């Protein structure tokens, strides 16, 4: 595994081997299986989540055909976003909340505060405002009327969106697949540590895509071609 024969590096490896680490747990498989047989704690939409897991791949294959849409998918899971397509458009409920522990930051600070690489769309220039939320889980950048959220979109769902018709449109940004939601829709944030979803305001037209591990949602650009141009300029 290690071809290096640097004596200092070898010394560190030997030190590692001589460390007294507690013995590994013995009944881990039982504990994990028991936990897996219980319902997921503190998360809503459990049934839909399971449907989403099963449907996600089929959706990609069949979403292009109207028959496929009707037959399979009411939930689409993409780039850390769970999109629930219901019969009617959602109504705003209560007053909009900010993301958990949201704070303002300079762009450079934000880069240091999160564990994933941030991009800025050249088409928009430097953001007017940058906010870091939920212990570095989400970074939001703001321009006049436009908001770009970046988050780790590879391990869990970060957002839950509720839509009336029409079905979101799947499209390509170069070789990256993306989802375009043209209408107003309800949006919730799912905190990293579990806990209750945070209800945000109604969101405007949104483009969602994934860049490496990072999920991105661009909100507030009404025209899909314009949104694609902005997304393509992200560096």
């Amino acid at each position, binding site marked *: *595994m*290690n071809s290096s024969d640097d004596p*200092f*590096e070898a*010394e*560190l*490896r*030997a*030190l*590692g*081997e*001589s*460390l*007294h*680490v*507690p*013995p*590994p*747990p013995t009944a*881990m*498989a039982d*504990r*994990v*299986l028991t*936990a*897996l047989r219980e319902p*997921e704690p503190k998360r809503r939409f459990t049934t839909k989540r399971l449907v989403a*897991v099963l449907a*996600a*791949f089929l959706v990609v294959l069949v979403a292009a055909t109207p028959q496929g849409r009707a037959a399979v998918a009411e939930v689409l899971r993409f780039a850390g976003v769970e999109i629930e397509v219901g019969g009617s458009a959602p109504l705003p409920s209560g007053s909009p909340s900010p993301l958990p522990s949201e704070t303002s930051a300079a762009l450079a600070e934000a880069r240091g505060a999160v*564990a*994933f690489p941030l991009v800025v769309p050249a088409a928009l220039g430097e953001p007017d405002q940058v906010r870091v939320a939920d*212990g570095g889980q989400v970074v939001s950048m703001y321009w006049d009327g436009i908001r770009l959220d970046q988050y*780790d979109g*590879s*391990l*869990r769902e970060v957002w839950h969106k509720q839509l009336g018709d029409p079905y979101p449109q799947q499209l390509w940004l170069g070789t990256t697949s993306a989802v375009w939601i043209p209408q107003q829709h309800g949006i919730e944030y799912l905190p*990293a*540590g579990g806990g209750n979803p945070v209800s945000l305001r109604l969101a405007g037209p949104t483009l969602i895509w994934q860049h490496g*591990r990072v999920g991105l949602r661009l909100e507030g650009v009404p025209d899909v071609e314009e949104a694609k141009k902005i997304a393509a300029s992200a560096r």
Partner: protein
Amino acid sequence: MNADDPPPLTDDEAVGRSLAGDLTAYEALVTRYTAIAHRTAFLLGAGDEAEDVVQEAFVKAYRHLRSFRRDSAFRPWLLRIVANETHNATRSRGRRADLSVRLEAVRKPGGPEDPQDTAVAGDRSARLLAAVRALPDREREAVVCRYFLQLSEAETAEVLDCPIGSVKSRTHRGLRRLREEVDRELL
């Protein structure tokens, strides 16, 4: 192993069966990777919570198995979840302090299963360990992954979720700092 036993499942076979809902296949993966997952959690600073961190990581890994890319290796993907869970568990309560307690503990003479502890008690080893403990977070994590867990650069990059170039530079800076620290104290 008895010659009549069926060959053990490869990781990929076990992942495939787990995706099809076969919990027994997932159990095989849990058994296979519990030790390294636990060591990773402990050495990245999970301390007393290492067992809970490992359990949660295996549960999350199962629930997100669809997002695992089948053409890549399971072990670093799992360890990345372990590292994330370790961060989650330690974030709220001063991770540096916690880690120093945990590493302090490893310097005590171990039980009978650990005859090598006498070596750790050596001055130089103790100083080196203290110097690792004092490294900036990112350098310490890279050094722990590369040398204490003996992961490759590529695995370390995946576990720490950063480019390989960052692993190289963090390791390089960490090693330089450690050498300086240990040499300085020899004078």
